[in-house]
């Protein structure tokens, strides 16, 4: 066998390994989906009213029924409630969220902020 053939075989092996690695990575991606989300979606009483890209820092006051106010802050790729006028303040105490399926709920204001990705699925189906 000449050095040329040997080189060819080596190239083929490299090609096969690369293909398999790509396939494995693709499979993992499809299986687990994307973990870090792209948007913070705002739902008031179950209805989507707005969505904000996590890659753009912003601060917005969400108005709900009965003069409810929750300040949604997006900073450094994460979303959190910076301030709120609900009685329990559970929403304002919640850690910043950034992964698909994570939610912040303000029960008194019937408000849900949840993280989604541009592509379908990924992350957890339910946080509890």
């Amino acid at each position: 066998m000449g050095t040329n053939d040997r080189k060819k075989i080596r190239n083929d092996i490299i090609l096969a390994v690369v293909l398999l690695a790509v396939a494995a990575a693709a499979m993992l991606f499809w299986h687990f989906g994307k973990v870090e989300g792209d948007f913070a979606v705002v739902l008031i009483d179950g209805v989507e009213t707005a969505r904000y890209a996590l890659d753009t820092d912003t601060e917005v006051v969400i108005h709900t029924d009965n003069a409810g106010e929750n300040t949604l802050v997006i900073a450094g790729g994460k979303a959190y409630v910076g301030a709120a006028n609900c009685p329990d303040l559970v929403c304002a105490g919640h850690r910043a969220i950034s992964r698909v399926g994570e939610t912040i709920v303000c029960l008194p204001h019937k408000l849900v902020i949840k993280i989604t990705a541009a592509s379908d699925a990924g992350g957890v189906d339910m946080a509890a």
Partner: protein
Amino acid sequence: MMRKMRFAALLLALLLFCSMVACKKQSGKTKYSAYYFDYFDTVTTVVGYADSKDEFDRVCASITAQLEEYHRLYTIYNRYEGLNNLYTVNETEDGVHNVVQVDEKIMDLLLYAKEIYTLTGGRTNIAMGSVLSIWHEYREAGMHDPAGAELPPMDALRAAAEHTDIEQMILDTENNTVFLADPEMRLDVGAIAKGYAVEMVAQQLTADGIEGYILNVGGNVRAIGTADGDEPWSVGIENPDTEDTETPYIAYLHLSDAAVVTSGSYQRYYVVDGKNYHHIIDPETLLPGEKYLAVSVLCRDSALGDALSTALFLMDWEEGRALVEFTPNVEAMWTLPGGEQKYSSGFEAYTFAMEK
């Protein structure tokens, strides 16, 4: 010759690639979700795979109609015209309770509550209403006026605790009536009603041939069937340490046709002098349990999961673990105040690692 082999090898690699990608079974259904705020004073989440939004909405309409009915029957805070519910059972007339005719759904819950009382050695006791109503009153007041938040006086709690004997709840299954023989006694089914209602709804959906849904009513999670195709559902158990900003979940679970219920000190609480006082009250100390930050119970039946998660939250770990190992098909995870996790023998078989 060489070229042919090279072509064959490439083809083989391509085939492998395709089969690996395709090995995730796809049903062609779309994933939908919905949120509701009207049941059991908590948020309800429904996630499901359906062929169309219409189909998903129809299933949600069935779920919410059922939850609405259970909520009206089991609430102790509201009366409804023409309906005998637990508010009616708790009411007194001239200082005594009435014998109240109730719906079968109430009778079944109360019978189940008696079983649970025995199983948990009295930790999960629906006859604690008189004690829990005092805590409820002080918590509500403290949440609306944080500066004036106070703890309930111990002598009031002790006096109320004299009237928590579940044997004084007289059930007549022939005539479907309930009578609280102790006039000072009140029922509070908060520790079991959500899990029980969720289980009943889930069983009804299964009977209706519906699958591919997962419900969450205030921490009572119940999966009906699998997720998309034959994939299990992925459930993240929230980190009860709300100060820890780096770790959103303490466990990732794979569930199909099963329940996971979490009782946590972070779920419903108020603050007095900088200290959190949550809603899971120990019948012995009459104070919020302090042994754990959270306890999650994984089992087939969300009613059992709900009842056990409350009981385990109030038990020493040794005793709780013994109860879990003794009860078939039940697993549990305990999170200690320092953040450390303990697991029952089979719990970790359901966990998986989430890829970053």
